[in-house]
């Protein structure tokens, strides 16, 4: 089966001139469809840069990065924008639009699909919010929701469009431990239902259990890519 993500010899630099500094060194990584991978490592190890490259949010400078079989090195802006629509993003902050209700925020992920009617978008968003346990909070504005509820809306938004890949950056960092664990298992359960791959960056040891594989990075290199023995 074709891997969801296939990385070969990926390098990346930040800055210009004398300040130019290599962040990623010759990375190789493959993630299979439906596979759940957690990326760990100390701050500054390049995890987040790798995530933005895989998310087609940055241009690839060196090496090969194939997303769903499409080469991102040299891809146009339009190609990258089109690929992003197949990815669900979950950020450390929920980044919900404050002037939209929970359901309208989730619907924003569906409005990119011209095939969907307004009623279908509404139904899909309603079902998705019920799945994250917010079936009673459809019309609440984010300001009327708790931190965990907001992050659950963000999870619903990332997953409602049936993405092939979910990219999550410290999705539990702003939550307390219990809520954080709930959100992590929610992401895992919903992604597995849909057969989506997950690449999740975290420092939170309590959520490592959801992973099929844990990849550790240090100083821009992958130092350990082992099967998750806790599984």
């Amino acid at each position, binding site marked *: 089966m074709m891997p969801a993500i296939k990385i070969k010899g990926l390098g990346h630099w930040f800055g210009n001139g004398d300040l130019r500094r290599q962040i990623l060194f010759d990375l190789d990584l493959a993630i299979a469809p439906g596979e759940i991978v957690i990326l760990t490592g100390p701050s500054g190890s390049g995890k987040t840069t790798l995530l*933005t490259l895989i998310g087609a*949010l940055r241009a690839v400078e060196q090496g090969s990065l194939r997303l769903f079989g499409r080469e991102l090195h040299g891809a146009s802006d339009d190609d990258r924008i089109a690929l992003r629509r197949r990815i669900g993003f979950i*950020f450390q902050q929920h980044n919900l*639009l*404050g*002037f939209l209700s929970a359901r*309208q925020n989730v619907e924003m992920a569906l409005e990119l699909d011209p095939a969907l009617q307004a009623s279908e978008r509404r139904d899909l968003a309603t079902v998705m919010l019920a799945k994250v346990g917010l079936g009673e909070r459809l019309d609440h504005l984010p300001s009327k929701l708790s931190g965990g509820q907001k992050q659950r809306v963000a999870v619903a938004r990332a997953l409602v469009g049936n993405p092939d890949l979910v990219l999550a*950056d410290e999705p539990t960092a702003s939550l307390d431990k219990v809520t954080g664990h709930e959100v992590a298992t929610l992401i895992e359960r919903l992604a597995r239902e849909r057969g989506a791959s997950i690449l999740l*960056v975290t420092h939170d040891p309590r959520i490592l259990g959801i992973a099929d594989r844990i990849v550790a990075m240090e100083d821009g290199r992958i130092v350990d890519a082992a099967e998750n023995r806790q599984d």
Partner: protein
Amino acid sequence: MRPVWLASRLAWRQLTHQPTRLASAVAGVVFASLLVFMQLGFHDALFDSATSTARAIRGDIIVFSRQSETTSRTSGLPRARLMQALADPDVTNVTPVYLGQVIWKNPETAVRRSIMVLGADPDSGVFALDGVSVAAERLRQRDTLLFDIQSRPEYGPIGERVARGATTVEVANRTTEVVGLFRLGASFAADGNLLTSDVNFHRLVRDRTPDMLDVGAVFLKAGANIGQVQARLQQLLPDDVRVMTRDEFIASERAYWANSAAIGFIFLFGVGMGLIVGFVIVYQILFTDVANHLSEYATLKAMGYTDQYLLAVVFSEALMLAVLGFLPGLAFSWWLFGVSAEATFLPMLLRPDMAAFVFALIFAMCAASGAVAVRKLRDANPADMF
């Protein structure tokens, strides 16, 4: 079409989320609309009133001394010049019009004030004014005249007096009788107007002779080609005479006030200030909307929304503010035009073409604010979100 609709719906939801902010943005646009309307209103009113004398004179072709710049300060034109025009086969009739300033004494307060007097043969029909034809017969009598009901009130309550019957007034130290009223309006050059026969005109304005007229009105046969007759008359008459169509005559009067009196500039300056104030207010609102939602906009970009979609959101907001602010601005201006017209005796008219023009300006103003505010969108970089 669909993304545009969705983008504008998002813009609408964002705008209406905070009603107080929306109200202050709309108030800014209302204020800008109002300022622009008032400036344009006064501008047009002053020009309309400045050309009111010219517009009062009918005639297919107007003959005017080349030394005269405006009807309010004319150099006389020999009557013989106008009579020469009768040589043209298409000319049916010519009428000399006399213009002058005389002193009017307010019958109530005895305060003296200068007033414009227009004189011409009452049977010629040369004055395109309400009420004149009715009074033609009465103006044939000695020392009779018509009073402009739209003159400034300082001349006294002549309208009321005339309604009670003919009223006697002192004009140029002569006792004259106001036998009727007409409508013309105050202008730069005249706070009020009188209208009388050519014969009575020379009784009032003693230093002028009937040989020197101010404006010559030329009437043509029905169906005559005005342009051709104009060319022939210009050929026929000496170079000290300007031969104009009526529209050209009005335009030259208007151009005199626009150019030599710098009035146009003053009002355009006011229009510009109104637009700048509106621009700044709308820009502030849009800019803070973008700046406060940078991470949300970046998230939308990460989700696969294009820059054009986000541009459409900001521009929709700008244009919604334009419409929301313009409509109350229009209504408020309508009311203020009435108030101003009563206060200044100027013909303040809010014409549809002016409303369309102001809307275009306000629309452009909001679009420009949007165009500057969206530059902040570049800071919404989804790669910085992690």
